[in-house]
């Protein structure tokens, strides 16, 4: 049972890397907390649902559509909200309030528009029967979710470390003021990073009906808690630390389900408290947050 839990946790955790990646990228670049992140994931799930049932789009194709659309949606949201936030003395705290409000609005509008019942996409779309990995039976949808997460993470890595825009993004992550002083178009770099963060949330949402069973307008809050545990463990503001954070979260969750199943719900909170008390900067953090 231990080996099974470890294997399942690894694959499940890779998906949660994707869940936390966009949130961490946005925080890393803009130092704002997008509390509506889980709701964008929820919207990604609804988008995949409707793209499947109305247009017959396979989730992998839907992920591409959602990625583009959510990126484009993220840009105006950035320009409407973030520049004003960043003018404030305590933009981090104000962002919590603003995006909490946005989260509530998104959930309410989705409930009104689509109702509150659970929605999901047939699992057979991503393959029938389990995939055997190291002798362990795992749903094929999990393997798809983990694979897409790995591709998305690699793409973010290439963007940050192999493109000029990525270099500028990392410069903003190190010091927004210094980046401005050196003539970097910080608002443009930030807007693109915000759009990418929302797009990553949308892609994670496409696979939510498979990984979480179903989506409802209210799942955003629960996803947010898990996402925060992942990025705090993997270091706030360090997008690539999210990979380790996600895997630790996934493995811990599966071990809890195996040996202390009734207490599994506490895991994200325990991880948050534990990391903040023992190593507040996260596993890969330095004394000051850096890219």
């Amino acid at each position, binding site marked *: 049972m231990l080996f099974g839990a470890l294997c399942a946790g690894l694959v499940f955790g890779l998906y949660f890397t994707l869940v936390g990646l966009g949130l961490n990228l946005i925080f890393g670049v803009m130092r704002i907390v997008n509390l509506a992140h889980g709701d964008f994931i929820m919207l990604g799930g609804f988008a995949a649902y409707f793209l499947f049932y109305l247009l017959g789009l396979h989730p992998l194709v839907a992920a591409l559509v959602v990625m583009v659309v959510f990126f484009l949606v993220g840009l105006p949201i950035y320009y409407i909200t973030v520049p004003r936030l960043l003018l404030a003395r305590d933009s981090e705290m104000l962002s919590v309030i603003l995006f909490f409000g946005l989260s509530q609005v998104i*959930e309410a509008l989705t409930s009104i528009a689509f109702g509150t019942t659970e929605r999901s996409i047939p699992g057979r779309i991503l393959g029938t*029967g389990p995939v055997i990995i190291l002798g362990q*039976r795992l749903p094929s949808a999990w393997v798809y979710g983990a694979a897409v997460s790995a591709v998305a993470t690699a793409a973010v890595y290439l963007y940050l470390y192999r493109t000029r825009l990525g270099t500028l993004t990392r410069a903003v992550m190190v010091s927004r003021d210094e980046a401005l002083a050196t003539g970097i178009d910080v608002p443009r770099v930030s807007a693109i990073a915000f759009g990418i963060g929302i797009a990553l949330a949308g892609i994670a949402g496409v696979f939510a009906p498979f990984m979480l069973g179903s989506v409802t307008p209210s799942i955003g809050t629960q996803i947010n808690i898990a996402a925060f545990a992942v990025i705090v463990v993997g270091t706030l503001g360090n997008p690539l630390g999210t990979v380790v954070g996600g895997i630790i979260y996934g493995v811990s969750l599966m071990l809890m389900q*195996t040996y202390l199943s009734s207490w599994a719900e506490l895991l994200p909170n325990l991880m948050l408290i534990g990391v903040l008390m023992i190593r507040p900067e996260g596993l890969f953090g330095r004394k000051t947050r850096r890219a």
Partner: protein
Amino acid sequence: MLPRLLLLLSLVTLICTGSTVTESAHAQAVPSEIKIGTLYASSGPFASISMPVYDSLKMWVDQTNAAGGAFVKPYNKKLPIKLISYDDQSSTATAATLYNQLITQDKVDLLISDSGSVLTSVAVPIAREHKMFLFDVSGTGGTFFSKDNPYIALMADPVSTIWPKYIADFLDSTGVAEGIKTVAILYATNDFTTTQANAVRGFIKAAGKLQIVYDQGVPTSTSNYTVLINNIANTNPDAVLHLGYVGNDIAFFRNLQDSGQKFRFVFGIYPGEEQEGLTKNVGVAGLTNVFSYVPPSSYHYTPNLGMTLDEFHAAWEKAHPSGSGVEFGANAIYGYMTGLVLERTLATTESMDQMAIHNAVFALSGKLKTLDGTFAVDEMGAQTGEITPLGQLQADGNGGLNLVVVYPPDLVTGKPIIGK
């Protein structure tokens, strides 16, 4: 002579005045409407069971008001119903505040709890403290009902302690005869399903014919079961009983199908209770031959009050066309059924005092038959009349599923299929 005449006049005046005063007081005491207070959850984990209940309760209110209101015996006339409702968003903390508000600020005449045991759990002590009778729609937790609390009765669902009786009886008889020897129990840790887990565990142990090889609780928020299913498979059970809410069942049966694990007997609460929604989310293949409770939405009870199942289903579909986001199922019936109990209670209560309401509700026990079955409560207010037959979702030959009753023997509509 004059003094006697004056005395007589005084008496006549007094009687006339008294009569006028009494009539005036009586006229003032008749309210313009009957206020019914309730909560609903438009969001959160309980929205999918709460909204159908709330919508069907509103259907009953609209129908009643369209017919001129509900007859209220203490006032000997029909009065319109005013439904005062608030959104608790599936939060017990919010619900506690709002239940208090309904009682102390809105001063409702009748109080109905939100759907399910979690959101009812906070209503029970509040109603009791305020000596307000609680119409408990579907909060079936066994701990809600006690001999020293007369301020509650369960309307539309049997108390959780008796739900799984037929599961255990079936396994102990037909199951054992078919070679089933071991059972796994996986349940969500909330009042509703924990009570059922405790009950079925007790029934199985009391009979002594089956061995429980796995018995674990998981948080109600659990949304992935792959590892749990693999862990269950490692204990080699013949029968698996999964006791959870709608979201739990969707995730469990999807993961079970994806995992490729097979068990001879698999039970879930909501494949039958919310067949439409579960089939949409899990698919026909994932639910074929799954055992479940047979809810009133799948069995035609003969009512002596209100609509039949077919009539209600037609009315529901008219009000909630496909895609509206609120599915037809057992919960859709529960709200309407609760309205019918309110209707008979108002028509028979001696006064609007809450103990008189209690007496009127309990007097209906065994006499009121609705599309939900026979309304019968025990001395503590726990519902015992509306039974939960054991059914199985079997392929109907047209690519769909048919829920057939396999136990108890007097209600059977089909033969069980137990895996090899």
